[in-house]
C-alpha cells in the first residue's frame, strides 16, 4: 500500500476500478461489440465492411426511416418543452388542489411505453372511445393513429415524457435564487422580461439536460411508433427490430450505432451549450 502512494496514477486507477469497471463491463463491452459488429467484425466470418452503413445512407427506405426517427425525436420534445415550461411555472404558484395535481401529473412516468401506445389506440383511434362518444353529436375525430404526421406518436410521447421534463425544469427554476428575480423586478424588468432574460437563461442547463434525455428517449423509442405510427415510413428503431428478427445482426448494430451517434451529438451540443452558459456567467462577474 505504501508503494501505491508513490504511484498516484495506479492508485487512482485502482480506486476507480469498481465503478469504472462496472460501467466498462456493462456498457463499454456491449457498445464496443456493437461498433465492431456494425463493421462486420463480429460473428463467424468477421470481415471489415462498410455495407451496413452504406445501406442506411444510400437506401431511400432507410434514409426516410432516419428522417422519421429524427422527426419522432425532435417534434415531441418541442411540444413537451413548451408544455413542461408552462407546467413548471404553473406549479410555482399556489392554487387549490396543487398538492394533488403535483402528485397526479407524475403518473405517466410509471406507465410503460407500450401501455401508452395501447391507451392511445383505445382512446383516439378512429372508431375508438372518443370517436364513439362524439358519434351522437355527428362529429368525428381526425385521423391520429397511423397518420402521416405522426400525431398519435407525438401525443403519446408527449404524455409519457411531460412529467419527467417538468420535474427537471421545475428543479432548474427552483434553483434560481429569489434575490436575482427580485433584483431584476426592482431594476424595472416586467415579469415576462424577467422570465425571458433572467430566469430562462439561468435555467438553461437544466432545460437542456431535460431536452437531451427526452430527445434520446423519443428518437430511440420502439413501442409507441411501432403500434401508433404510420406503417410507412417506419423509424429506424422499428427497422432495427425487424433486422434483429431476420438475424441481420450487422444491420442491427449499424442502426444502433447511427441512433447512438445522434444521441452523442446531442450530448456534445449539451456540453457546448452549458459550458457557454458557464463562461457567460464568469464574464459577467
Amino acid at each position, binding site marked *: 500500500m505504501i508503494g501505491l502512494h508513490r504511484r498516484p496514477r495506479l492508485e487512482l486507477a485502482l480506486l476507480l476500478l469498481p465503478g469504472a469497471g462496472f460501467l466498462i463491463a456493462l456498457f463499454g463491452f456491449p457498445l464496443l461489440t456493437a461498433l465492431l459488429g456494425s463493421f462486420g467484425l463480429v460473428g463467424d466470418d468477421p470481415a471489415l465492411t462498410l455495407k451496413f452503413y452504406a445501406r442506411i445512407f444510400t437506401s431511400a*427506405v432507410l434514409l426516410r426511416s432516419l428522417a422519421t426517427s429524427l422527426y419522432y425525436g425532435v417534434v415531441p420534445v418541442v411540444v413537451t418543452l413548451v408544455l413542461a415550461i408552462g407546467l413548471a411555472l404553473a406549479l410555482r404558484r399556489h392554487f387549490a388542489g396543487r398538492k394533488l395535481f403535483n402528485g397526479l401529473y407524475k403518473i405517466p412516468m410509471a406507465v410503460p411505453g407500450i401501455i401508452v401506445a395501447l391507451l392511445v389506440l383505445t382512446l383516439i383511434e*378512429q372508431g375508438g372511445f372518443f370517436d364513439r362518444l362524439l358519434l351522437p353529436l355527428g362529429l368525428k375525430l381526425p385521423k391520429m393513429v*397511423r397518420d402521416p404526421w405522426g400525431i398519435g406518436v407525438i401525443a403519446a410521447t408527449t404524455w409519457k415524457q411531460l412529467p419527467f421534463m417538468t420535474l427537471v425544469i421545475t428543479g432548474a427554476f427552483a434553483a434560481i435564487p429569489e434575490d436575482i428575480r427580485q433584483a431584476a423586478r426592482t431594476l424595472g424588468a416586467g415579469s415576462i422580461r424577467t422570465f425571458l432574460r433572467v430566469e430562462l437563461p439561468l435555467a438553461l442547463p437544466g432545460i437542456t439536460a431535460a431536452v437531451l434525455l427526452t430527445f434520446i428517449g423519443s428518437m430511440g423509442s420502439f413501442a409507441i411508433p411501432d403500434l401508433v405510427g404510420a*406503417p410507412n415510413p417506419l423509424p429506424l428503431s422499428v427497422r432495427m427490430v425487424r433486422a434483429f*428478427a431476420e438475424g441481420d445482426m450487422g444491420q442491427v448494430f449499424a442502426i444502433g450505432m447511427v441512433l447512438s451517434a445522434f444521441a452523442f451529438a446531442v450530448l456534445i451540443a449539451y456540453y457546448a451549450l452549458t459550458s457557454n452558459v458557464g463562461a457567460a456567467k464568469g464574464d459577467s462577474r
Partner: protein
Amino acid sequence: MNRLTAFALATTCLIATPSLADAQPGLKHASPELAAVTRDTFYDVVVPLAKAEGTVVMYNFAGSFADTWNEGLLKRFEAKYGIKVVYSDVKGDQADQQLIAVQKAGQDSPVDAYFAGGGDYPILAPSGVIGNVNLGAILPNLATVQSQFKDVVFGVDVHGTYPIVHRNQTAIGYDSAVVSDADLPKDFDALLAWSTSHPHQFAMTLPAKGGSGGGFLFSAALNYTTGDCRARLLDYSKTKDDNEDFALNDTCLTPVWDYFGKLLDSAELTNGNADTLNLINNKQAAIGTVWEDQVLTFLRAKQLPESFRLTLLKNGQVGSGDAFFVPTNAVHPAAAMLLINEAFGMEFQAYKMETKASRSPRNDFDATKVSAETRKYLLPDAVYPSLSVPANWPMANALAKALDEKILSKR
C-alpha cells in the same frame, strides 16, 4: 468418497462424455437407448427415460397459444406421465437469437421442446440449434402426418427434425353485415376494384409487420406471374440475397408492383394483424388481410362482430404453420420427444382446431372433430383447402422489402 476415487470418476466421465456425444450426434444429452429408439419401441423406451428426467422445459413463441398449450396439452401431459412442464411464453425472434448464441457457446439449451415459427428453420438450422433427430420417423403420433409437414417443410428438406404441429391459413376476412356475398371480391382484380370504390375500407397488414400482409403480397405475386417467374417465386433453394436481388430487380414482377401501386392508393396499411382486425371491429374497415386462427381467437374474445366471415381469393392464398423441435443441447431430450408426440395426438389436435382454428397436419383428421358452431367461422369447404398454396417465407420477406423500396418509399 476419497480424492482418488473422485479423480478416477471425473476422469472416466471426461473420457466417456465425448465418446457418448460422438455416438449421438443428433441430441447431445440423448442416452444410447434414446438414440436407437424407433416408432415401434417409442413408448417402451422413451416413457421411462422421460419419467427419469422428470422435467421438460417448453417455449411457446405464439402469444395467442398460451391457453391452448396449458389447457389442452400440458396439464394432461403432467397428469398422464407425472413429468413437470416448465412453460415459458417467449418472443420468437429473441428466443431464436438466444438459442443460436447458446449453441455457439457450446452451452446446454435453456429449452427442451420449442414451439417455433414455421419460417424460422432457415434462421435456426445453420447454427446447429435444431437437434438432428428424425421426429417424423420416430414419434408414433407423426405416423399419419403428411410428408409435406415433416420431411420437406415449405420446400425445405428438414429430415423430420422440424415437424409442423399447427397449420394456419392467411385469408381475406370481411364483415358480412357490411359486404354482401354478391359484392365480395373473388379475385385480386376484383379486390382492387372494390378497394378503389371503397377507399380505406380494405385494410392490409404491412408485410414487414405481419404474416397476413406478407402472405397476401406473396399470393398476389403468384397470381400476377406465370412460367419461370412464378417458378422462381416458389424456388426454396435460393439464398436471402438472391431472393432480395430477384424481388428488387427482376422485371417479371412489374405487374405485381403495378398492382400494389394502385391498391395502396386506396387501401389502409396497418401495423399488424391485430391492428387490421381492430380496425374492422371499429367499423373503420370492412375487408382485411387476416389469419384464420387469429380470427377465431378474436371472435371468441368478442373482439370481432359475429358477422365476420372468411374467404380465399382465386389462384390461392398462402397457408403456413408452426413447428415443434428439440434443440441439439436439450437437457431433457426424452421428455421433450414425449411431449412433442403428445402434441401431435388426435386429442390435442382436435382441441386446438376447436379452440383456435388451428388446422392439423395429420391426414386422418377430418371436420367431424370440430363443432358446427366453430365451423361457421372457418374458411368454407368451397375454398379450403383447394385454394391454399404453400408459403415461401424467405421470398415473401424479400418481396416485402422490395415493396418498401419500390412502392412505399415513393409515396
